């Protein structure tokens, strides 16, 4: 018996809603009609708020902005499954997550206008500030998960990352730690097929991203990331498992970045428009809308009304964001440590006396 198989692994993919909005009744997550409607509203709100950000950026009213276009289902479906006590660790492209958790949109805009105050998370929620250093924040989620485990606090730590983030060393260190201590952590990976101009295939040789966590002894699954119900369901199961001591899960949401990487990018330089076009049919909003229509929950008029309300909601957020007074030099110093050093005090004085 010189060569014996000593371990075996499978990776599964979950799909619930077809692009036509059809679904096998048995697979439907246990959600009420109003919850289905809420999911759709959030998808729609994400898209509208995202589109507005892009116009604001073009008008010079926001800085560089990363669009969520096409990824709404991955963001909304996962965030909708969370409780208010769970801790969320966003990457930088999670507008839909922020909105689903009712983070003030005005603050989100403010952040992308170049103001740190946009990431001052309201006390009633636990959303870590946007993380720019790709892949490094999974460790913070592991730490919070360990804290919750220590306190027997039924909280799950939920980091978001992209396909690119799976290549970083910290991804490995974090999920190995999560596996080892059976931490209550659910990592949501939006595999949008691109890391700026680097395609998923140029990122790693693996067939799936979900299989990467075979390296950590945790559960990995791939879901159709444009299917909000599948994303919700997978997240829900993973959260339950985490809360019940079953350890961490990695969810690969198979989706697509329909926009440029950010407003500073021009994706036509490196990707084929046919690829982009091929994903239009799988639009996450359309699919959910068809589902609602087929259940008799939605029609043109309701759509028009929703769009109008949401536009107003977004207008309101923009006004609030732009009404905020400018941050002061003092704020640049105040949060370095809990108190200023004597040198910082002098610097603050010089700085406040001078321009700009």
């Amino acid at each position, binding site marked *: 018996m010189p060569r014996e198989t000593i371990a075996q692994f499978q990776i599964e993919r979950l799909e619930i809603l077809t692009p036509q909005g059809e679904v096998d009744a048995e697979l439907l997550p246990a959600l009420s009609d109003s919850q289905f409607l809420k999911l759709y509203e959030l998808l729609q709100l994400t898209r509208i708020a995202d589109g507005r950000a892009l116009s604001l950026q073009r008008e010079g009213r926001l800085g560089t902005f990363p669009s969520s276009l096409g990824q709404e289902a991955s963001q909304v479906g996962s965030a909708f499954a969370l409780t208010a006590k769970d801790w969320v660790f966003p990457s930088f492209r999670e507008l839909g997550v922020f909105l689903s958790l009712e983070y003030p949109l005005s603050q989100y805009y403010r952040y992308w206008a170049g103001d740190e105050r946009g990431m*001052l*998370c309201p006390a009633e929620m636990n959303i870590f500030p946007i993380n720019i250093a790709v892949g490094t924040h999974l460790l913070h989620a592991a730490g919070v998960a360990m*804290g919750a485990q220590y306190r027997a606090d039924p909280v799950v730590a939920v980091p978001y990352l992209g396909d690119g983030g799976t290549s970083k060393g910290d991804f490995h260190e974090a999920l190995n730690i999560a596996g080892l201590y059976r931490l209550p952590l659910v990592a949501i990976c939006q595999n949008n097929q691109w890391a700026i101009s680097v395609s998923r295939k140029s990122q790693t040789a693996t067939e799936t991203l979900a299989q990467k966590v075979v390296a950590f002894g945790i559960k990995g699954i791939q879901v159709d990331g444009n299917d909000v119900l599948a994303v919700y369901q997978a997240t829900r199961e993973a959260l339950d498992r985490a809360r019940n001591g079953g350890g961490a899960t990695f969810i690969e949401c198979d989706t697509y970045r329909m926009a440029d990487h950010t407003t500073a990018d021009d994706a036509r330089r490196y990707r084929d428009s046919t690829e982009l076009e091929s994903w239009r049919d799988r639009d996450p909003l359309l699919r959910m809308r068809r589902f609602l229509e087929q259940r008799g929950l939605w029609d043109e008029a309701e759509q028009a009304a929703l769009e109008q309300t949401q536009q107003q909601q977004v207008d309101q957020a923009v006004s609030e964001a732009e009404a905020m007074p400018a941050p002061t030099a003092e704020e640049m110093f105040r949060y370095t440590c809990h108190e200023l050093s004597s040198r910082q005090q002098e610097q603050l004085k010089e700085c406040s006396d001078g321009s700009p």
Partner: protein
Amino acid sequence: MAVLNLVQAINQGLQQALAEDDRVLVFGEDVAANGGVFRVTEGLHEQFGETRVFDTPLAESGIVGLAIGLSAYGLRPVAEIQFLGFAYSAIEQIYTHAARIRTRSRGRFSCPLVIRTPYGGGVKAPELHEESSEAFFCHMPGIKVVVPSTPSNAKGLLLAAIQDPDPVIYLEPTRLYRLIKEEVAEEPYLTPLGKARIAQAGDQLTIIAWGSMLERSLRAARNYPAEVIDLLTLSPFDRETILASVQKTGRLLIVQEAPKTGGFGAELAATVAEEGIMSLRAPIMRVTGYDVIPPLPLLADYNLPSEERIVNGIEELLRY
């Protein structure tokens, strides 16, 4: 009061912090059953159990990142990096995150964590076990850097670091671990961060040192009218004590174990050249490690500032 060495004093500090506050957790490579490779955490695992004192995988970025999450959650992690030479892979976690989460979240989250690590030369250890790269951390706004020099300040500074609301790098001079013993008060006490200590009073020359070089500087200075300042906290450093001393003595010698160029001694020299130059009657002098990779044991004594080199520096400055 018991007579303790540095290892025992730090161990006692950790023991008391764990006993007093259930938010304190101690972890790192080999800190549990093994009690740390220098025995600094000896007995803690037995006393406080696996949830309070535990081993981690071999992953330094992971250890620091974990501490960040734990501290943001509301606990008081005290993480050990086995040697400073292995902290380099954790610099991103330290500077990108621990240092910035308060700023980034405008105060909503913060990182009251301590990273303990043995550092410095003179112990005839393998490569990367004798690094003294404190300067990297002193150029990171948001990070505090503390270097004890005696058993009693080691304990007090450690307890202060654990209570501090900000991330603190606590560097333990390996060469001193068992070299110095002194009476250490049994009950917990705090030695405030940010304050230097006059280790020897004098009026002709100011010597600034920290960690293992403090011990050597004191030996070198014992027959000279030198004021020896034990810096204790490198970031934020105690400018006032330094400037007051230089104003009195008019001469400044900085003793630093790290490679000369870009070391923390440069900041001290620059500060005095900016704010105290009018009282100087001699050039500032740095006695430092050379601009080389810290050598293996057979060459190590060439590099670490010796008592003789410090004495030469003192004599040279006193000639002005």
